[in-house]
């Protein structure tokens, strides 16, 4: 157990600067983006006030207040761009977290494979570290929205403000796809996502054991699983499928649990017997 934790720390520590960078970039762009969006909207409203000769209170009566979620959508691309970058970065690191040990001047992979501990700990600790990165970005996003709510409260005039709770605000944004408010949505997105990470991890180990053939086999299996799940999702919407949608969901979940077990078992076996440094 202690070895596992030390390995997790090793992985987290190695990535700390990149993670910090992603967090800083996301915070900066989203917060600045909101300030700009508020500035633009207020300018537009002030213009309308002078043109129509209204006071702020009259404007609010006629047009209703503007909730944070709506202002967010003014600079939608500012908000979603950092998220895309983060996803891309973490996605890339699914591969690099392994390959960086092999390539480079030092053969750190020698050291890791020679450790007098079960090699499976390497697999599990890398997975844990990656999940920690993902959830820390999740938490950061929640934090950023909270800060944005404060900025909104400070800058928007009282007449135009629509007070909402944090959860309520997030619920109304497209963002809720990444930071779900419902437990079963969260389990679907992050549960299925984790299983895909496991499938990719084992694909990497297949490549390290069987080279090109292994890579092809692993990618084909992962892609096949993805298509199967997508197909099941599409089937659920049609009325003629032989399985009820709830049954398709149960089947999809069972499939993913099976895949998780398969990935873990195969990854462990490959690390023990087939992987070459």
């Amino acid at each position, binding site marked *: 157990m202690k070895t596992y934790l030390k390995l997790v720390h090793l992985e987290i520590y190695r990535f700390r600067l990149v993670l910090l960078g992603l967090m800083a970039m996301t915070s900066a762009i989203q917060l600045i983006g909101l300030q700009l969006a508020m500035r633009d909207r207020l300018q537009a409203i002030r213009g309308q006030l002078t043109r129509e000769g209204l006071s702020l209170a009259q404007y609010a009566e006629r047009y209703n207040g503007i909730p944070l979620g709506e202002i967010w959508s003014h600079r939608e691309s500012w908000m979603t761009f950092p998220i895309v970058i983060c996803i891309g970065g973490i996605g890339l690191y699914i591969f690099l977290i392994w390959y960086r040990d092999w390539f480079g001047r030092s053969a750190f992979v020698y050291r890791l494979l020679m450790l007098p501990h079960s090699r499976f700990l390497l697999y599990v600790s890398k997975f844990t570290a990656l999940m920690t990165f993902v959830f820390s970005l*999740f938490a950061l996003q929640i*934090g950023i929205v909270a800060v944005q709510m404060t900025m909104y409260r400070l800058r928007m005039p009282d007449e135009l403000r629509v007070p909402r709770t*944090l959860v309520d605000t997030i619920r109304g944004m497209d963002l809720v796809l990444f930071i779900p408010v419902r437990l079963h949505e969260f389990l679907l997105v992050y549960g299925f996502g984790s299983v895909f990470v496991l499938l990719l991890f084992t694909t990497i180990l297949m490549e390290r054991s069987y080279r090109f053939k292994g890579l092809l086999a692993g990618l084909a299996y992962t892609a096949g699983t993805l298509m199967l799940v997508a197909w099941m999702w599409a089937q659920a919407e049609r009325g003629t499928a032989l*399985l*009820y949608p709830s049954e398709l969901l149960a089947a999809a979940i069972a499939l993913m649990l099976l895949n998780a077990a398969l990935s873990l078992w195969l990854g462990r076996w490959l690390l023990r017997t087939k992987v070459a440094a």
Partner: protein
Amino acid sequence: MRRRYGYSIGLAVLSAAVLAAYAGAAGSDSNPPYKLVTLEGSTEAMKGFVLEGLGSRLSADGRRERTGSLFLSAPFDDLIQPDRYSSERNQLIIAHRSFMRGHRQDESFYRDGNFVIGADMDDSLSSVKIRILDLAGSGSKEFTVPVRANAAKADNPLYQDKTVLDIQRIETRIHLLVRGQHDSPGNGPAIWTFTDYIVDKESGELLQAEEIYQTVPDPDPYTETSVELIAEVRELEPSSSVMLNVKTIKRKGPDAARSEQDLVLKDWRIIGYDYASGDTWDLPKAGMDRLKQGLAPRLHEGKLYAFNERNAEPLIHVLDTRTGEPLAEPLQLDRSGSAGLRSIRLEKGLIYDNLILNKIPTVVVYEEKTRKVVYRGAVERTDSDSQSVDYQYFQFNYYGE
């Protein structure tokens, strides 16, 4: 490295704390700040019905839940989205799970105390599959009934389609009302045909195919005939007759927009058909005149109901389907605070009126015979910080248990 454990531990703990707080907040936020309050009467009539609006789903027994933010899990609900006026299919799906397996979206269903019958047109448009579930317990049967082609092959229509619109059981016979559609020869305007296919319930044999009505294309290219089905509003309920709303409309010219001012109603007929006897009749002039006041005709429990939901103070007229004469005094509904936003539902001798009354979304349920109000309820806001319900229209849907 030992002193730097703080970084990893800090990251993990901080993230976990934020996520836990978020989960807690989201969990305690699962109830929307609205509820449906009973103002009068008993909630018995509202069993299975919900009001949906402002991101919430409310039922008369006090249950309330949030709708929305269900991107990935939404398709995995067994019940059909009740976004149409009728959604009784969900009752069938709940009550007869294995019979409905794979057939949730078949074209037409029928249900009475003894049987559930479903019908679906085959993709090749040449036969209809009929499935009968015997509620007394002897399982289900299936028949395939051939359906004749729309037009002779020589005519070569560019487009054709057939749908089973209605299915009824009269004693030992099953009636399938099939609407066919095809282009007229030379790719002219569409021709619609309505045919009753009569099938023996025990053997599945096609006994008769009776054509009820067929549109005749008008030589004038700007004149079009449309036919709308007036079937029993409660899709599953038995109904001994069915009606066709036939309108012939002329457009003013080639550039005429499709707005109502530029259309002239040349002819309007309502044709009734009785399944058992095969009789057809036209609704007499007296009845047509009543409808011409702007009332939409609906068929329910063998009577012709006519009312206009867009009216601020609608009257519900109940007419005889054969004569068009009123069978009772019209029922006057409350004045709506928002014209056009209203839905009226007829079921089991009750009339459900969903409207905005004095700014507030309200449901009033009347017993048709006695005209008494058996339920009245309104949507109330439980948290003053949230959006007001004033002038918000809530959809009235059947959702099942």
